[in-house]
């Protein structure tokens, strides 16, 4: 790129190494000062800006994990596309799972601006080296799970994501704006599924309650470990990547669910939910963080299945991607021959 060429200094071997090091330190100091100022002003960091190594690393981890979660998160719902019980629900579900592919794609794009290729991220994911939201390692066993996933899982995701629209890293924030706009229907369609079931036959209502019972705790755990056990949170908040702590968001989410579950005519499987007048916060019963860690470590009900499915799609598609790349190269050669 022109702008880059103008100022990339030709490397003088060895001789001026000390001098180069000093110049580097000076540049780093200036970069840090600029970065600090941007963060203090609550402005945005853009891809070409200087940023601390740890900031880049944290973001890359968070954004790629977020992308992986969207991609793996397609599976439990795709599992029901073929069996959706009405054509309207089938359309909605298809559009929703398709959206998730798009969201994964937006997020991978944001991560790519940090210097990581999608290919590398995909490789890490299918090699089991990358993490994604542990909730997608639970099975979607009944149709009501489509409702519970939309209402609880997407609901929790939206709580998390709306503040992320203001994340200090520009491409991440912009991806989240698009995602939040598109997801506005995801939670509503889930709520509607549950409402229909709850107002339906006894068997349907039972199906809905069972799904809420199974997805409630994993959804609460989507906000991440309690603040005391979340060592990275503080730094992320200082960098304006995170805007609210895990517990704050979780409490806010519980408050919303309490209201909404009444409209559904269902109950939350937690008899310790209450509003604490002193702290002005919603409280909930204990969560099984041991299970959370187990699932995160790969020992959840569907971890192996989810990764295998992704690996299979990726491997089965290799010849197609290769063919399209080869075709493009051939076309280019033809163009060049024609021009010559």
């Amino acid at each position: 790129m022109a702008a880059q060429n103008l100022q990339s200094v030709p490397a003088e071997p060895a001789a001026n190494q000390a001098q180069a090091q000093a110049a580097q330190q000076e540049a780093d100091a200036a970069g840090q000062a600029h970065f600090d100022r941007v963060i203090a002003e609550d402005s945005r960091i853009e891809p070409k800006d200087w940023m601390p190594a740890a900031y880049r690393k944290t973001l890359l981890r968070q954004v790629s994990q977020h992308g992986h979660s969207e991609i793996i998160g397609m599976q439990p719902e795709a599992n029901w596309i073929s069996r959706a019980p009405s054509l309207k629900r089938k359309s909605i579900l298809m559009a929703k799972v398709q959206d998730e592919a798009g969201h994964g794609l937006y997020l991978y794009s944001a991560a790519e601006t940090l210097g990581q290729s999608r290919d590398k991220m995909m490789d890490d994911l299918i090699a089991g080296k990358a993490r994604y939201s542990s909730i997608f390692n639970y099975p979607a066993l009944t149709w009501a799970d489509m409702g519970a996933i939309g209402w609880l899982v997407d609901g929790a995701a939206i709580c998390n994501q709306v503040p992320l629209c203001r994340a200090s890293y520009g491409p991440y924030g912009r991806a989240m704006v698009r995602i939040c706009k598109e997801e506005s229907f995801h939670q509503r369609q889930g709520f509607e599924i549950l409402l229909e079931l709850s107002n339906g036959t006894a068997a349907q209502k039972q199906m809905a309650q069972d799904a809420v019972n199974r997805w409630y705790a994993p959804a609460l755990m989507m906000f991440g470990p309690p603040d005391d056990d979340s060592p990275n949170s503080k730094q992320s908040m200082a960098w304006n990547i995170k805007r609210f702590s895990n517990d704050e968001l979780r409490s806010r989410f519980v408050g919303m669910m309490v209201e909404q579950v009444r409209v559904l005519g269902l109950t939350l499987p937690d008899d310790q939910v209450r509003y604490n007048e002193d702290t002005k916060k919603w409280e909930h019963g204990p969560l099984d963080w041991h299970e959370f860690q187990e699932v995160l470590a790969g020992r959840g009900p569907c971890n192996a299945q989810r990764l295998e499915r992704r690996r299979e799609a990726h491997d089965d598609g290799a010849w197609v991607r290769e063919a399209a790349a080869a075709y493009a190269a051939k076309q280019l050669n033809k163009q060049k021959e024609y021009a010559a």
Partner: protein
Amino acid sequence: MSPHGNPEAPASGAAEINREAPKASPVVESREVSTSSTSDGRPVSTSSTTDGRPVSASSTTAHDRSAWGLWEVFVRSSRGLSHVHAGSLHAPDAAMALRNARDLYTRRNEGVSIWVVPADAIAASDPDSKGSFFESPQGKDYRHATYYTKSEGVKHL
């Protein structure tokens, strides 16, 4: 990737990143040896094949042969407005990039026209030269109508 933060001084890991992220598009670029850069603008010297994909040991693996280039997508939301950057995507060539953009970025009626540009065809200004590049216009109030106060109150001016 041993992230180091300074976009102007690539660490050794940067070349590796570039190799894994072929940004070049076959359609626009054709070069033998060139300076390419990662998407965050760090210059990385690398030799490339004619289709712009860097030559390296790994370029012979299936992994690299099948990777599609990165494209930036611009969408015009309705007639009379500018195209606005919507995001990026991967595609093997311009024709597919346009179609992928249509499927991805306009499935809720967001647009009436789409541009796609190979990500590496975009030359960007240098963030570190903000001062010399962008501060000169400051203080040149005389370029703005508000500078001329004596004519205030005069109609149609």
